[in-house]
């Protein structure tokens, strides 16, 4: 069984099944942004729909509502998902980050309490990691959860929580030993976001919407039963979230291949227009970037298939998480910059979706999608560990270079 890049009949069948279901069920019009109240509920509904046919968490075991797919099958599903521009996954933090942790570290009670509601979209989960003074440096966390009888009493200030504005629950690290420092004394705790003492405030982004939130805790009480894993073991549990699967699941190659395809479509359409209008062709720099982006999206996909194959064959993970992070974030930025360059003056227009009879509506919609993607891609090299930190990790851990 040497290298064989042909899909098996089973894989073809899965693709066909996924394609048929998605084509029948994906909303015809894009849902409103999940960073609005209306859009959030529309996306929650979509999560429920996905779950009803076990498409919500295809890699989860069947007993928890999944299909027990392996990584390559998951890649195939993702390709189909992005092919039809299906909605973003509002519960991705729950599905890909919290769910697997819960399955591994949760008690049977915790699993039956949280997993079904997570799976069905009844609960949407936010991640609650960062604090104002601890960005990429999680060991500097200061928000405390101090034991008081059967409760933890939480005080402090979390920030940059994705989806937290409208989410139901959050998971994160809290300092359960107030006297501890750095990695010690942290515990992994889940917190309802609509409970006394918890104030959630959206942080408007460059695009004007609130994808992130700050969370203020003032004597918020949660039962000790909300702790996942042992007290003081939060750091190692959280680190289990930070590996390859996390990076892969949140940034599946299909997403970048789809963007590259849209970029090529934009490029070819523009070239056609210019030929018709007999104006100068698109500049060679942008032309080269578009080609390079297609190549890089392919390389990312091929690399993922190779890693997935190795994992399925029992291999283990090396530096892929850091390498992937650098590669996809720079690719994503590059694709969006190229698109904005092609759009030229149209790029600054904001969407007019639903405005009838406006000449600019289509151009403005397209510009908005690319500009929002660009703003989002600017954050790519920042969140989930700045690329500079990933480069340090590669140099220190893989190449064996000395710490600075």
């Amino acid at each position, binding site marked *: 069984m040497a290298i064989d890049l042909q899909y098996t009949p089973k894989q073809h069948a899965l693709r066909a099944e996924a394609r048929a279901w998605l084509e029948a069920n994906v909303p015809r019009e894009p849902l409103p942004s999940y960073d609005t109240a209306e859009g959030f509920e529309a996306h929650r509904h979509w999560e429920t729909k996905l779950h009803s046919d076990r498409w919500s968490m295809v890699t989860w075991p069947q007993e928890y509502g999944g299909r027990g797919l392996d990584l390559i099958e998951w890649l195939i599903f993702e390709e189909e998902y992005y092919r039809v521009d299906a909605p973003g996954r509002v519960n991705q933090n729950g599905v890909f980050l919290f769910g697997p942790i819960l399955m591994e570290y949760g008690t049977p009670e915790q699993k039956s309490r949280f997993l079904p509601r997570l799976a069905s979209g009844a609960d949407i989960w936010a991640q609650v990691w960062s604090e104002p003074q601890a960005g*990429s*440096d999680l060991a500097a966390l200061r928000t405390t959860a101090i034991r008081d009888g059967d409760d933890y009493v939480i005080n402090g200030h979390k920030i940059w929580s994705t989806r937290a504005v409208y989410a139901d629950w959050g998971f994160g690290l809290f300092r359960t030993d107030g006297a501890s420092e750095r990695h010690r004394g942290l515990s992994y705790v889940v917190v309802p976001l609509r409970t006394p003492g918890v104030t959630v405030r959206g942080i408007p982004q*460059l695009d004007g919407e609130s994808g992130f939130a700050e969370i203020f805790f003032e004597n918020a009480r949660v039962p000790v039963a909300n702790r996942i894993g042992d007290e003081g073991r939060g750091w190692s549990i959280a680190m289990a979230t930070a590996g390859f699967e996390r990076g892969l699941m949140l940034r599946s190659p299909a997403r970048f291949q789809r963007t590259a395809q849209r970029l090529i479509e934009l490029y070819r359409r523009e070239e056609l227009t210019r030929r018709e209008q007999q104006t100068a062709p698109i*500049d060679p720099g942008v032309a080269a970037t578009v080609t390079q982006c297609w190549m890089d999206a392919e390389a990312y996909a091929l690399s993922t298939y190779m890693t997935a194959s190795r994992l399925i064959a029992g291999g283990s993970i090396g530096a892929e998480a850091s390498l992937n992070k650098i590669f996809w974030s720079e690719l994503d930025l590059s694709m969006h910059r190229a698109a904005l360059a092609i759009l030229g003056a149209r790029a600054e*227009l904001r969407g007019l979706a639903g405005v009838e009879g*406006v000449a600019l509506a289509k151009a403005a919609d397209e510009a908005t999608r690319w500009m929002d993607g660009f703003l989002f891609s600017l954050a790519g090299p*920042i969140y989930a560990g700045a690329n500079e930190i990933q*480069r340090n990790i590669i140099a220190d851990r893989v190449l064996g270079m000395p710490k600075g």
Partner: protein
Amino acid sequence: MDFTFDEEQRLAAQSLRELLNDHCQGSDLRRAANARDLPSFEAACATRRARLAELGLAGALVPAEQGGLGLGVVDFVLLAEEAGRAALPEPLVDVEGVAHPLLATLGELGESTLQETLVGSALVLSAAPGTTVLANAAFAQYLLLSRRDDELALYRASDISLTHRESVDPLRRLSEVALHDAKPIARVTGATTSSAWQAARARSTVLNAAQLLGLGARMLEIAVAYSLERKQFGKAIGSNQAVKHALADVMVKLEFARPVVYAAAATLAPVRVAHAAVAAAEAADRAARAAIQVHGAMGYSWEVDLQFYAKRAWALAGLNGGRSAQFAAVHQSLLRGELEAQWA
């Protein structure tokens, strides 16, 4: 050969910078950006507009015999840079750098309008043929618009259909422009008209490049300041080599875009103008990205002033065909063998 600005040019820029230091800080921009409607936007900008009018820049590029100051683009380039530095919402560059001197080419036909707009009782803007969206048109009384290159037409803004459109930059009030059957109040045609449009486009391109330089320099300052203030792993993030080198590279881009923009302003040679647009857009874009990334997740939020400068830079980078079209123009000159003749 003397590639230095003179005292007068530098003092004029200095005056504008001081005015904008007083009236165009992040808090001023934020107030305007938060305005819900046009009147409250205008109210938020009223003081600055009054101060700007007092600065005496009206008709800067209009010939003296038509009541202007008779200056050249090179005399105006540092002012445009200051306007960029401050992310000035007012169309100083579009009016004094582009529309007024264009209006002056209408001769007697536009004389009364020119006098009215020079004394500041009305605002005139222009848009190259084919334009469908125009910033600040909602504030103008007169518009120079045309469907064709060889025609220049002056309209009353009230005769034209203007519909508000959103820009990514909350301080650029865009209007979709539709002429329908509007009748111009003055109109000229012919070859000199098309060269007037070309000259206007060159001025607009080079002065926007100057604004981008100013924006880039401002974003670099903001990034440096933030890198000194923000601590991570126990030390200022600005002490990291990766941060230092990223910002040093921004400075390299800015400092080598600067003479290109100034030379373009001094010569208005087409290739130099296109080069200036490319270099300034690239430098400003690099500055915006580096600054946002230095700010970490903060750079992504509405709460930092950085956003105003970054968004302006993205908006301006697309004008007059955008960085890509200007790069293509330089490349076409290369293919035609024109680049070798630039010196000596």
